[in-house]
């Protein structure tokens, strides 16, 4: 598990993820930001792979890199005059540093306190797809259904809002 390739690929993926996350935030041109968002999601997917959570990685790639990024791109590309506007970086670096330092302190304090769990041997802690399915439709059936109802409501809401100015083209004639 922790051979040479494991180390190499871990560091490569980590660099990709952090760098693209950085680029997403600092990039002025919005569409480029979306591209780096896709690389960011792929990087995270790769990291999940390394941690043997294959199903999670694939869902991450399918849902995030495949669909959410496309929706982001749709929003940026289709709403008029959004893509061209350059996002100016706010210049008060001072406030930025302070906030960052505070946040870092908070995270470190949490992390160092906890005992680092030894990285589980492969296959021990990970649950197989079958168990995941059983759990989802077994004990956790109610929360699963509730979540799907919430999603349905969101879907119907989106359709209604989008459908309000339908009949495009005709209204002009």
């Amino acid at each position, binding site marked *: 598990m922790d051979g040479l390739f494991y180390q190499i690929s871990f560091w490569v993926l980590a660099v990709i993820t952090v760098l693209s996350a950085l680029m997403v935030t600092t990039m002025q041109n919005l569409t480029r930001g979306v591209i780096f968002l896709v690389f960011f999601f792929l990087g995270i997917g790769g990291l999940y792979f390394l941690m043997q959570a294959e199903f999670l990685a694939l869902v991450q790639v399918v849902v995030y890199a495949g669909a959410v990024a496309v929706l982001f791109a749709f929003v940026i590309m289709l709403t*008029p*005059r959004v893509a061209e506007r350059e996002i100016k970086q706010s210049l008060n670096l001072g406030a930025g540093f302070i906030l960052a330092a505070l946040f870092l302190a908070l995270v470190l304090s949490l992390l160092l306190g906890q005992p680092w769990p030894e990285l589980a041997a492969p296959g021990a802690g990970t649950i197989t797809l079958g168990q995941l399915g059983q759990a989802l439709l077994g004990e956790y059936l109610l929360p699963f259904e509730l979540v799907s109802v919430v999603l349905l409501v969101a879907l119907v809401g989106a359709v209604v809002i989008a459908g309000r*100015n339908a009949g*495009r*083209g*005709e209204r*002009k*004639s």
Partner: protein
Amino acid sequence: MQTTHEMVVNLGPQHPSTHGVMKLEVVMDGEYIVDCKPVIGQLHRGMEKMAEGMLYGQFIPITDRLDYLSPACNNLSYCLAVEKLLGIEAPERGKYIRVIIAEMQRIANHLVALGSWGLDLGAWTILLYTFRDREMLLDLFEMFCGQRMTLNCFRVGGTTYDLPDGFVEKAREFLEVIPSRINDYEALLTKNPIWMTRLRDVGVVSAEDALAYGLTGPNLRASGVKWDLRKVYPYEVYDRMQFDVPVGSRGDCLDRYYVRIQEMRQSCRIVQQALDQLPPGDIMVDMPTIALPNKEEFPNNFPEVVRHFHLLVQGYAPPEGEVYLGYENPKGELGFYLVSDGSGYPYRLKIRSPSFINMQIFPKIMRGAMLADVIAILASFDPVLGEIDR
């Protein structure tokens, strides 16, 4: 309320599916068309002014270039107009030959229209099949008058060429093959759900609108108006031919497609009957003031030579007056309005080209359609820019 960002797009002269150099300035809101303005004139050659400087006989090859997909029909309608001006008629055999070639030209025209329409909607293969069948017709034209597209085969008062010997057999052979080919197109397209959903209720033209905008030809008949000049004013020998006029019901693209397919079948029937009733006899009206003399007996027969030169330098001198004659061109009613001042040169020639008139309805039916429909509607009217710009 801030409208979404509207795009002005030029379905410009340089576009794969505008059937020539027509430019459609289209204002689009997303995929939907808000407004559309056709811009023409790129192919204007000033034919009507050219006619004023030419003798009646010289202008015939120019009419080939009007609707370059059906040159024989253009020649025929010009010659008929001049004959009406001169008050003469072609002889029997001449009329039959003209009808045969004109109806074959109609089939060839509809084949091109159907092929390029299928191509515009993504069905690549239908284009190749229709052009393969049109090739047989072009061979027949080449056999008859020596050219495949710019035929220049008819003259005022008849035709210059008689049917070559192998022509009738080859034409009959063609008539056996073509019905099965049309069935192939029908199998490929007519009930194909994709083709139907692409064309059903797209670019609907009601009968009143069609008449109000002056549509003619298959586009008018698709809207349910039974108006075919070959039946209304049967000139040449159309009154001796049994054929029926296909008429659509809803006036949408699918009906225009249906009318053209049926018209091809009817034209085959006409050519079949004309070939059966082909009478012997001469092919040019034997009036000295019209027909060119026979060249063999020139050296010794001097008055004939004088008449030959007189005809070709002065041209025929039609009586003063004006005439208008509309002919059922495959695209609609192609009309020639001739004003003559008694000299050999026409005083004024106005060409009523069907595609130019049919095109006026584009802005009305394109509004609210989608971009893909614009292409389908454009192809359903089968415009030819040579005719629109003259």
